């Protein structure tokens, strides 16, 4: 195994195990950290999928790897969802592939504005549809975790 990845795996793994603060890890895009087990110590994996086939297919692969790592709670979160057709595509895919859908975040112009301005979505408009949906994901995670 590449030593750099081993170092990251040790670091993430031990930080997660030895520190009791809640932790959110933004993983590198793609399957590598999952296939190398960098995040084997986490309680939750949330895989972000978009309502198009290649993205959902990637999400399904990621969730499969996460389950193989033995992670207790493996979910997906749909992002950039525009309307009922997207919602249905996501729901159907998740149902067919036995993926647990944890939340849907709507496509939201205010996120694009925030990106364009180079500021955080939460600081740009904390009442936007997308930020509200992410707040809901957070509440649901806390409820699922017994907080």
């Amino acid at each position, binding site marked *: 195994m590449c030593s750099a990845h081993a170092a990251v795996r040790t670091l993430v793994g031990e930080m997660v195990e030895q520190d009791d603060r809640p932790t959110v890890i933004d993983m590198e895009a793609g399957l590598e950290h999952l296939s190398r087990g960098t995040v084997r110590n986490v309680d939750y994996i949330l895989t972000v999928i978009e309502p198009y086939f290649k993205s959902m297919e990637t999400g399904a692969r990621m969730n499969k790897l996460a389950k193989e790592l033995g992670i207790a709670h493996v979910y997906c979160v749909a992002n950039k969802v525009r309307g009922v057709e997207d919602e249905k595509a996501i729901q159907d895919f998740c149902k067919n592939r036995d993926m647990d859908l944890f939340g849907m975040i709507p496509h939201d112009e205010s996120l694009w504005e925030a990106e364009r301005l180079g500021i955080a979505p939460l600081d740009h408009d904390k009442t936007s549809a997308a930020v509200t949906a992410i707040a809901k994901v957070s509440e649901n995670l*806390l409820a699922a975790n017994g907080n």
Partner: protein
Amino acid sequence: MKIAIAGKGGSGKTTIAGTLARMLALQTARQLVAIDGDSNPNLALTLGLPRSKHKALKPMPRSVVERVTTEDGKTRLQLAKSPHEIISQYGIDTPDGVNLLLMAAVDHAGAG
């Protein structure tokens, strides 16, 4: 509670990770650790760290992980310091009680 956010590039992974981290910190009124595991890190922006402070972002050096020899002569990696020390030394305070750690340098160091 330890949560990892995965996804394809461009899926909005970082936007969700950063906003979710802040929401969890706000809703629990607790300190939270956010780890940017990307070799091209930009979680800081979503966490609300002003751009003027991005130049001062200090990635963790490789030396936070050390190789030790165990009794049976094998080697393994372990943290050179406690997570508490690592966070207080390399963690970056961002709004709402989130502490950011950057993995990028740790990853790059062994690559050459």
